[in-house]
């Protein structure tokens, strides 16, 4: 915060104590008001919260739901990585046709809402009957997440390679490597390391988006919380608990991303980036 103001002197410090107290009162006041409203509606009754201290909601609803959520997220991460490598390398290909084609695919799937894709795959796979009907929601969630996040990964690899100093490629060619070898052995590994922080923050997006599965009847954590809550009359409490589970996991992933950003600097010639590149900035730059 040192960019905006000087180190405060005695007068400013005294003034800040008062402002701080006033602000605390306001912030705490809002908190108390919300709690009072909740209390008045009976939402703070111990009977509604206590069940979460017992085993039943966890063993029968929340943990199986969380397992499904992590399953969908885990599979999606692997498939997105594969997809990202294929199309990321496609965008870096020396053939113009491959480059344009991969570019079009990547930009298209980054512009289409994930939910739209999930609904399409859910209804489409249901129609085709090529997989077990009980697997359809999971596969639809994974496919929707893969097409979107894989495209983001592809974009990360491309911009990571573009962010490397020119000397890396020149040196690779000078020691006799071919184009493809230079990409595979020198450029892409460094690009991936530089992009690790951005990749880690994209994992948060994948985990959060698995919750869209509830709309296509995938029995993930949100669905489990909703079923438990509406069956026991504590839907509000149940949703809060589910949200807290997501927050704890995602907070850990965010911290991991920050830690990576501080660490990978020495292991790559590229500049570490914490976020995915902007949509459509890449159009017309190839």
């Amino acid at each position, binding site marked *: 915060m040192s960019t*905006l103001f000087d180190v405060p002197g005695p007068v400013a410090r005294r003034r800040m104590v008062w402002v701080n107290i006033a602000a605390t009162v306001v912030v705490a006041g809002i908190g108390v008001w919300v709690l009072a409203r909740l209390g008045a509606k009976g939402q703070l009754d111990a009977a509604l919260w206590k069940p979460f201290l017992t085993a039943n909601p966890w063993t029968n609803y929340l943990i199986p739901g969380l397992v499904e959520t992590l399953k969908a997220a885990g599979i999606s991460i692997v498939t997105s990585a594969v997809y990202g490598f294929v199309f990321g390398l496609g965008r870096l290909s020396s053939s113009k046709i491959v480059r344009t084609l991969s570019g079009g695919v990547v930009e298209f799937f980054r*512009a289409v*809402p994930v939910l*739209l894709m999930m609904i*399409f795959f859910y209804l489409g796979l249901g129609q085709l009957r090529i997989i077990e009907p009980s697997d359809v929601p999971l596969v639809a969630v994974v496919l929707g997440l893969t097409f979107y996040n894989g495209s983001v990964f592809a974009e990360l690899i491309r911009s990571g390679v573009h962010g490397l100093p020119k000397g890396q490629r020149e040196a690779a060619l000078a020691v006799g490597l071919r184009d493809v070898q230079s990409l595979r052995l020198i450029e892409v590994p460094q690009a991936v390391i530089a992009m690790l922080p951005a990749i880690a923050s994209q994992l948060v997006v994948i985990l959060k988006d698995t*919750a869209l599965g509830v709309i296509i009847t995938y029995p993930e954590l949100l669905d489990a919380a*909703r079923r438990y809550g509406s069956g026991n009359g504590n839907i509000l409490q149940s*949703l809060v608990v589910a949200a807290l589970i997501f927050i704890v996991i995602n907070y850990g992933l965010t911290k991991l991303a920050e830690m990576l950003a501080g660490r990978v600097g020495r292991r790559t010639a590229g500049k570490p980036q914490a976020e995915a590149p902007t949509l459509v900035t890449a159009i017309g730059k190839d």
Partner: protein
Amino acid sequence: MDDGFLQQFLSLFDEFDVLAAFWVNIQLTFYAAILALVLGTVLAIMRISPVPSLRWAGSTYVTLLRNTPLTIIMVFCVLGLWGQLGLTLSPDFQTNFFRLAVLGLSVYHAAFVCEALRSGVNTVPVGQAEAARAIGLSFWPAARLIILPQAFRGSVAPLGNVLIALTKNSTVAAAASVAEASGLMKTMIEFRPDVILAIFLTFALGFVLIVVPIGLATTSLSRRLAVSR
């Protein structure tokens, strides 16, 4: 693909009002964008302010909201705020759901607006603030005349990203029972399963047509406004 197919596909558009569904998404995006911008700016000011309690409140809000899935927030707005707490934003059933969805979209994206603005503040070099202090400006004049104008220019691109994400996320309003594009797509596919691919591509193209111009506009705007250093 013969004539009959195309005609049958086009006849779907007489039966279902696709444009009206997209119009709902655009309206959701519009109102949520304004609310999120206001709330996000307040949060950003709180987070860069010299008052510790405000900084804490701002960063707690951002940490909680940006790590919660939007779908949970949407379901919470309808089942929790309306269903349990009786929060009614309009006597009309449909309008009520619409406004609850706008509320959910706004509180979620405000956290991202706050981060975008903060990243804009980070693009301003320390030398600017030091120079402002050196010529005798105190906190508020320095912030108003030197820091914030440059910060807003630096945050156009990340704000554009938030707007794009918001546009796509307006489909999640389906979880709050708002009749919008993704819901209509589902209905249309269930009605005519044989042309599922054509229906999906129509809706996907609709979003590409909305999102790509936003991306191009904010990218060129951010280039034009960029402070050259």
